[in-house]
Each structure stands twice: as structure tokens, then as C-alpha cells.
């Protein structure tokens, strides 16, 4: 699958934050979004995810079979992790809802280093662990495009390495990714789009 956006403008409440954005991502390519606070990175991701309407321009997912379900995973600031549900239960819920097309629950938890916490109440997890659980959600259902908003927030050094590994794997499997972040991400060959330079 590939992603092509042309003349895209995005913003909140009718006010454009970033305009005339052109994005073209081929399979296996990743894009870093950079820019100061309030430049509109998160807004652009939401627009790409289809959660916000674009103010102008078009977004196309070429070569994606609409029958196969949504083309993308969005992983935002909020992890969608609820206290009083178990860790494995939470993941199982998302797998059931999105389709079990990826790793098994146990394998995904193993992958993000939460195997030992599978039976715990997800509310007891620290912020970093919750973020790992949110990443595991991307693994249990395979979707070609990942939209990640500050994925490294709350992750410690080991977590950052994990994130880079997951991303590299995903791209190697011909996936796409758009990542908004202030941190460095240790994945080679990411292209960069900087928003709000003029501002």
C-alpha cells in the first residue's frame, strides 16, 4: 500500500494550522513529523487517520483493499488503557475488535516486555508500561499504516530501543509509518517533514 496526500491543509475549528502539505509514502517508508509546540503535528496525524476532516486537499491510500478493514493504526497521547481490566484482557479485546491478523496475545506481550504482567490490572501499570501495552495493540492486528503521536513519551531507554525495533520490523515488512515526535528515533532512512517553520 502507499499513501499520497496532496495540497493537504489541516487545522482545528476551521482555522488552518498547516497548509499545502504534500506527502508521498511508498511501501516500507517512514516519515517523521517535526516542529515546535502547537505547529499542528498531532492535528495532521488525526487528519491522516480520518478522525478530523481535512480543510483542503486529498488523502489517498493506493492499493488498499477496503474490504480488508481500516488501513491504519492510530496511536495517540492517550493509550486507551482502562483500570480494572487485565493486561491480557485489554489486548484480547482490541484483537477481537480489530481482527486477529497479527501476533497472538501472548507473543505480542512477550514482544513488548509485558509477558510477566499479563494477568495484572492494567491500571497498575506505570505510564511507560501502558505505552508498551498500546504498542502491543499494533502488533495483534496487522495494518499497513501506523500513525504514531509522540510514541516515545514516557518510555525509558529500553523502551525507546523496543520502539525502534518494532518500527524497523514494520517497515521491513513493507509497512508505512508517520511519526510525530520531538525525540530522536533510531530507525535509519526516515524522511522528515517539518511543520510550522515560519511560525
Amino acid at each position: 500500500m502507499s499513501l499520497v496526500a496532496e495540497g493537504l491543509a489541516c487545522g482545528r475549528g476551521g482555522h488552518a494550522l498547516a497548509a499545502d502539505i504534500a506527502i508521498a509514502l511508498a511501501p516500507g517508508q517512514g516519515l517523521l513529523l517535526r516542529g515546535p509546540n502547537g505547529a499542528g503535528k498531532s492535528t495532521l496525524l488525526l487528519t491522516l487517520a480520518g478522525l478530523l476532516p481535512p480543510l483542503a486537499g486529498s488523502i489517498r491510500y493506493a492499493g488498499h483493499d477496503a474490504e480488508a478493514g481500516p488501513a491504519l493504526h492510530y496511536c495517540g497521547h492517550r493509550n486507551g488503557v482502562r483500570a480494572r481490566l487485565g493486561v491480557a484482557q485489554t489486548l484480547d479485546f482490541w484483537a477481537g475488535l480489530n481482527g486477529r491478523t497479527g501476533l497472538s496475545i501472548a507473543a505480542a506481550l512477550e514482544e513488548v516486555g509485558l509477558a510477566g504482567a499479563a494477568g495484572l490490572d492494567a491500571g497498575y501499570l506505570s505510564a511507560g508500561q501502558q505505552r508498551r501495552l498500546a504498542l502491543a495493540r499494533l502488533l495483534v492486528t496487522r495494518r499497513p499504516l501506523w500513525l504514531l503521536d509522540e510514541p516515545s513519551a514516557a518510555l525509558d531507554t529500553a523502551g525507546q530501543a523496543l520502539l525502534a525495533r518494532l518500527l524497523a520490523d514494520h517497515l521491513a515488512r513493507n509497512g508505512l509509518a508517520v511519526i510525530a515526535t520531538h525525540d530522536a528515533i533510531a530507525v535509519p532512512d526516515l524522511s522528515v517533514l517539518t511543520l510550522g517553520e515560519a511560525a
Partner: protein
Amino acid sequence: MNGFSGILRRELRLALAGGGDMLTLVLFFVITGALVPFAVGPDRELLARIAPGIVWIAAFLAMLMGLDRLLRPDREDGTLALYRLADLPLSAILAAKVIVHWLTSALPLILAAPFLALILGMDPQTFWRTLLSLLLGTPALAAFGTFGAAVTVAIRRGGLLAPILIAPLCVPVLIFGVGAISPLGGPDQAGAALLLLAALSLMACALSPFAAAFAIDWGEE
């Protein structure tokens, strides 16, 4: 369907594990009903006469009060945004929410109703009719309520707003619900009211998930 039952399971699990929400709601229902005698006086005859109305109003208010916990927590922890990207359509997810809302807020009330009926001195026959009318009518309340919650979920402090918006819409449910119990026009009228109530519930349950999905898609972010 895997996802659908997954949502049902998750929500039921949360409701049962979760912080006494159901207990709070049932208490609200019973306390509201039990306050009435303090306000109108402990006149057995009067109480028995208005008892069906009281039970209905208390159930009505309790179900409206439970709306706030239906979608807001999901929105606040980001789950709602993910629902919009799920494999299952949003309307199916909201249909599951209607069912869950009925199971976790209407059903406990119906189970607690005998207690309220007892202290209000309802006679057994009226009580069974009340139960029947609650069973047939509350699905409509759950459906309307889910729609109201969807409309107000994007507002930060919308706590009381959904009840206010939905209450006028639900007046017909109340009218037919009470009409099915104390048949001023005789048993014929009561039967007609029950049928209308059931029709209302069916229609509301069938349509409200779509309306609610629209409201969320258009109102979010």
C-alpha cells in the same frame, strides 16, 4: 461478531468490577423513590395510587443519571477515537453500548423495583404490570440515552446536559409506560399502551445506534 461480543464482555466486566457504579445507580433509584413518602406524607392510599408513577420517574431519572459514565470514560482515555478506527462499524459498537447500558442500568433497577414497590405499598397485580411495562419501556430509554450521551460526549462538562436533552424526548415512553399500568381507559387501553411501548423500544433501539454514530463522527475532535 467476535468484536461485538468482546465489547459486551468488556463493558460487563467493567460494570461488575468497577467501582460500585451499578450499586450507586440502584441506590439512587431506591432512594429517589423512597424520598417521595417523606414529601407527600405516609398516606398508604395516596402512595399506592401514585406508586407506579413514582417507580417510573425514579427509573427514568436513574437511567438518565447513568448516562455520564456510558461514553465519557471511553472518550477521556482515548478508546473512543480507536473505536472509530475499529474493524467493526461505530454503529455496531454503539448498539453494543445500548445493550450494555440496558443490562447495567435498567436491569438492576428492574431487579430492585420489588423493594420499592413493597415500601410504596403497591398491590401485587399493579406490581407485575409495572414490571412488564418497565421491561418493555426501558430499552427505549437506553437507546435514547445512548444517543444523548453521544451528542454531549464532546462537551467537557456535559454531566447534566444529556439528561436535560433527552428527558423531553423520552416523555412518550413515560406516558405509555404509566398508561400500561394504571389503565384509566380500561384493559384495552393498557394493552394498546404496552404495544406502543414495545414499538417505541424496538424503533429506538434500531435507529439510535446509527444516530449516535453520526453524532460522534461529526462532533468528535
